[in-house]
C-alpha cells in the first residue's frame, strides 16, 4: 500500500508552506523529513493526516484518493512535538481513546493498551493523571496512543524536540528499537526533524525540505555524503557546513591569503564564484596551521564550538573536548581539505569527496 503525493502545494499567505511536493512512500519503510523550522514539515504531515487541505495536488493511498477521506476515517496516527494528550483522561483512558472510538470489545482494548504501555516502558502508570507525568513520559503516552491503533501511516512530528538532552537520547534509542522490531512491517513511518544527527541515526529514506520545496531525496548516508546543493549541505549538518568563498588555480585553493593544496577531486574546478564547503568537524587545531581570530566559543555538552574569523571569512570549528578560549584569542587551525566539498556559484554541488559529480 503506497502513499503517493503529486505536486502538493499549499499557500495560505504570501509564502509557500508546500511547493509542488511529490513523493512515493512505500509500506514498511521509515521516511525522515529533514528541514529547518518553518520549512513546511508540520504542514506536510498535517496534509497527510488530513488536517489541512492542499490548494492543489493529489494524495493517493492504496490507490484511493486520500483527499476525499476525512481525517477521522483515514487511520493515521500522529505524535506532535508538544506533548499532546487528553488532560481530562488518565494514562489508560488516553491510550484506549482511539480504540473506544472504534467500539472495540473492552477486554481487547485492555490487552492492547497494556501491550502499548509495555512497549513504551510505562507499565504501572495506567492510573496516573497526565499532568503528573514528566515531559518524556507524556510523550511516551502519546506515542503509545498512536501505536495502539495499528495505523497504516504513523506520523511523528519532531517528537523529541521538546525533551531535554538525556531523555532525547534515551527515547531516540527506544524509537530505533521500536521501528526495527517489525512495527513498520505494514506501516509507513514518517518522522520529521530538524536534527541531522537524528536523521543519520534513524537511517531511513530522507526528504530534505526547505521553504516548502523538496530539495533532495535519498538514503540518509547519501544525503550526508553527497548533498546536492549548498542548502542541503547547510540543513543536513549541525553546526551547518562552513562555506568559504575561494578560488582554485595552479592546484591551490586560495582564500584570505591562505593557500591550501587542492585535493584531486577539486583540482579541476577553476571557475569563478566557487564555494568550498567543509564540515566543522573537518577542521582541527594545529600549531602549524593558519591563524584565525576567536569571535565566540561555546561549550555544548562535551564539545567546544569555536566561531572563528579571518578577513571576511567566518567559520565554525567543533572540537571534541571542553576548552576555554577568550574572545579575540588567536588560534591556529588546519583544514582536512581532502574532505572538502565544492559548490558552483548557483549553489549546486560541484564535487564531493565521496564521489558526487566531478569527483
Amino acid at each position, binding site marked *: 500500500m503506497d502513499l503517493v503525493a503529486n505536486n502538493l502545494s499549499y499557500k495560505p499567505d504570501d509564502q509557500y508552506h508546500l511547493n509542488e511536493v511529490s513523493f512515493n512512500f512505500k509500506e514498511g519503510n521509515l521516511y525522515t523529513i529533514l528541514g529547518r523550522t518553518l520549512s513546511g514539515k508540520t504542514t506536510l504531515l*498535517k496534509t497527510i493526516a488530513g488536517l489541512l487541505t492542499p490548494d492543489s495536488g493529489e494524495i493517493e493511498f492504496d490507490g484511493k484518493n486520500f483527499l476525499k477521506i476525512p*481525517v*477521522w476515517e483515514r487511520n493515521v*496516527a500522529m505524535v506532535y512535538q508538544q506533548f*499532546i494528550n487528553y488532560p*481530562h483522561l488518565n494514562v489508560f483512558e488516553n491510550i484506549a*481513546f*482511539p480504540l473506544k*472510538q*472504534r467500539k472495540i470489545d473492552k477486554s481487547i482494548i485492555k490487552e492492547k493498551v497494556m501491550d502499548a504501555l509495555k512497549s513504551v516502558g510505562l507499565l504501572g502508570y495506567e492510573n496516573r493523571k497526565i499532568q503528573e507525568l514528566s515531559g518524556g513520559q507524556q510523550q511516551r503516552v502519546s506515542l503509545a496512543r498512536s501505536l495502539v491503533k495499528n495505523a497504516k501511516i504513523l506520523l511523528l512530528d519532531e517528537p523529541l524536540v521538546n525533551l531535554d538532552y538525556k531523555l532525547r537520547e534515551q527515547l531516540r534509542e527506544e524509537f530505533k528499537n521500536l521501528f526495527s522490531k517489525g512495527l513498520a512491517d505494514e506501516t509507513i513511518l514518517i518522522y520529521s526533524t530538524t536534527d541531522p544527527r537524528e536523521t543519520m541515526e534513524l537511517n531511513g529514506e530522507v526528504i530534505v525540505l526547505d521553504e516548502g520545496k523538496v530539495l533532495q531525496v535519498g538514503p540518509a548516508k547519501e544525503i550526508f555524503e553527497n548533498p546536492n546543493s549548498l542548502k542541503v549541505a547547510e540543513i543536513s549538518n549541525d553546526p551547518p557546513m562552513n562555506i568559504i568563498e575561494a578560488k582554485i588555480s595552479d592546484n591551490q585553493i586560495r582564500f584570505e591569503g591562505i593557500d591550501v593544496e587542492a585535493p584531486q577531486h577539486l583540482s579541476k574546478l577553476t571557475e569563478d564564484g566557487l564555494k568550498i564547503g567543509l564540515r566543522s568537524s573537518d577542521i582541527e587545531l594545529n600549531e602549524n596551521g593558519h591563524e584565525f581570530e576567536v569571535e565566540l566559543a561555546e561549550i555544548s555538552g562535551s564539545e567546544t564550538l569555536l566561531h572563528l574569523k579571518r578577513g571576511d571569512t567566518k567559520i565554525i570549528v567543533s572540537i571534541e573536548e571542553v576548552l576555554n578560549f577568550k574572545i579575540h584569542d588567536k588560534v591556529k587551525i588546519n583544514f582536512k581539505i581532502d574532505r572538502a566539498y565544492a559548490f558552483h556559484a548557483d549553489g549546486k554541488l560541484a564535487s564531493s569527496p565521496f564521489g558526487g559529480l566531478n569527483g
Partner: protein
Amino acid sequence: MNKLYIFLKYFFIVVWTVFVVAPFLWALTTSFKDFQSVNGGVTYIPWVDFEPNLEGWKVLIKSPAKGGVDIIEPYFNSLFVTCTASLISIILGTLSAYALSRYTFKAGFVKNNDITFFFISQRIMPPIVLSIPFFLFLSSINLLDSLTGLIVVYIVLLMPIAVWIMVDFFNKVPREIDETALIDGCNPYQAFLKVVLPNSIPGLIVAGMFCIIFGWIDFFFAFILTFTEVQLLPVKIVALNSSVTPWWSLSASALVSVAPLIIVAFIVERYLSKGNLSGAIK
C-alpha cells in the same frame, strides 16, 4: 522574620474577614429588630441589647392585602429567569465561542475578532440605551411583562459574557488537542463533546458564575420590562420601601436575595480548592 510574616498574614486575614462578614452579621441582627430597636440607638446582641422578633421576615411572605410584600413568587421568578437565561447563554455562548476560536470567518472586512468584539460591545453600551429598543421589541412580539420576554432579554445581556470568557478559554486550549481527537477517529462534533468540552469545565464554571451573578442582580431591565403580571425579586424588594424605611424587612430581603450567590460561590470555591480549575491544560 518568619513569625512576623505569619502574624501579619493572620492579622490581614482577620481584618479582611471582619470586613467581609460584618455587613452580613449586621443585616442578620437588623432583620430581627423592630422600629424601636433600630431607632433607639445602636444595639448589637439579641436578647441582651434588644428583643428579637420575626416581623421583618414575616412581611416578606405576607400577602400585600395583609400589609406584606410576598416575595415568594418573585423569588422563584428570578431563580427561573436567571437559571434559564444563564443556561441558554452558556450553551449558545460556548458553541459560538468554539466556532470563533477554531474556524475562520470572513465577510468583507468583518473577521473573527470583529465578531467577538461585536458580542462584547453589547455590554459596553449603557443599559439605558438598550431600554427603549428592548421595550419596543418586546411589545411588538407581545412579550412585555412576561417571563419569556425577560429570558430573551437576559440572554442578549448574558451571552456576550459567556462568549467573551469562553473564546479566551478555547484559545488557550491547544488546537492540537482537537486535531488529535480527529486523528483518533472523532468527527468534529465528537471531538468537541468528548475532548474539548470536558477540558473546558473550569471555563464553563467561571462563565456560568458570571452569568448567574449578572442575571440575578439585574434591576434595571426587570423594572422597565415588567409591570404587574410578572415581577422579579430586585424590583419587589424596592417596593418594600415606604415613608418609614423598614430596615428590618430590607435586611431580611437582602439576606435571602444574596443567598443563591453565596451558594454558587461555595460550590465554585469547593471546585477551586480541589485544584480542578488550574493545570487542566499544560
